[in-house]
């Protein structure tokens, strides 16, 4: 059986997999990192989004063997070691950007990539378009858009509503 060596959330793993194993199956079934979810089988919903080399990708649309040597971050790897949430996670909580929580890990991972790729900040329309690959059935996206805008301010060092609220 093929073997793949990759780093997930800072830990190096060598795992035997069938060639047909998807990255998301490796994460969920072999590494028991069940925060990354599967919501569809047509690469539409984005519940499985993780970061590979800093880019957001759909872990359901990449073979595990394609990840040889890759550096993968999942939702479990976002918070600091002391449990402090990433600003994006914190903003999702503050703005009530999640309900059932199932799409949330993928949504958060996509949102972070979106903010990282727009160092100058994002308009509401850019956020909405940037979420094209993530489907949420609960929230209507309204609060997700607000949370991402607020987190972008924090991540990019602008004085934000969030920071003001904390003062």
């Amino acid at each position, binding site marked *: 059986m093929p073997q793949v060596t990759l780093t997930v959330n800072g830990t190096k793993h060598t795992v035997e997999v069938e060639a047909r194993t998807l990255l998301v199956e490796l994460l969920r079934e072999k590494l028991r990192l069940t925060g990354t979810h599967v919501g569809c089988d047509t690469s539409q919903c984005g519940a499985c989004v993780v970061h590979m080399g800093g880019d957001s990708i759909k872990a359901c649309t990449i073979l595990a063997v394609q990840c040889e040597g890759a550096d993968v971050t999942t939702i479990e790897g976002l918070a600091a070691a002391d449990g402090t949430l990433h600003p994006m996670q914190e903003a999702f909580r503050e703005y009530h950007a999640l309900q059932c929580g199932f799409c949330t890990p993928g949504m958060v991972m996509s949102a972070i990539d979106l903010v990282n790729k727009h160092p100058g900040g994002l308009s509401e329309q850019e956020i909405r378009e940037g979420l094209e*690959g993530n489907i949420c059935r609960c929230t209507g996206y309204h609060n997700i858009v607000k949370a991402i805008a607020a987190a972008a301010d924090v991540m990019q060092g602008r004085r934000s509503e969030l920071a003001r609220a904390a003062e």
Partner: protein
Amino acid sequence: MYDFSYHKPSSVADAVKLLAADPDARAISGGMTLLPALKLRLNKPSAVVDLSGIAELRGVKREGNTIVIGALTKHYEVATSAEVKAAIPALAWMASTIGDTQVRNRGTMGGSVANNDPSADYPAALLALGATIQTDKRKISADDFFQGMFATALDVGEIVTAVHIPVPEKAGYAKMKNPASRYSMAGVFVAKGPAGVRVGVNGAGAGGAFRATEMEAALAANWSPDAVAGIKLDAGMMNGDIHGSAEYRAHLVTVMAKRAVANAG
């Protein structure tokens, strides 16, 4: 999906050898089309040959008046490439509209071109830009390369290595996305370049990407949105489904052509 053997060659020669030896092997780069098909068990390849380890196939460069894009260049890289943005901004913008962020972070130009999905963006752009497709053994003009839905001039075992795109004077793109899948329902790429005025259409045609020659003639005479506003393509050559009839798609081609010309300036 069904199981298969997996190979990751590090040179074009090795990749070609693997693919030529096994007609049931499939090449993969980003996998944005192949993997969804495999997951639904629509395909049963004996082997998957991963091209992503071939460093020579990656990157964008300008050679004189030609932009050369390596087959493994990702859509995100094309969308943000300084060379492409300076020389063919419409192409960079087109790449920024392919699929979603995650597709653009994985999907490659070569995969899109070699697969020739009727709703993929690249084929229409390359037709309009008069591009040349470089394979491991030859150069093929876009006109000869794209041969209808999922059909190309590639031989078994032959792989796309790069495209050469002459820098146009003007180019523009516009598309209407399918509301559900977000693939192109009708996209039009217009260009005025060394090969004259050319119009490529994706998404709408029943036979895949094609050139709208009547629009090309009209735009050659008068480069303005009004020139194509009155041109209705034959609905008989369009695709119809639950998202829109052939007549609707024919109409969208006209609308998108107008917008593409307007976008080109």
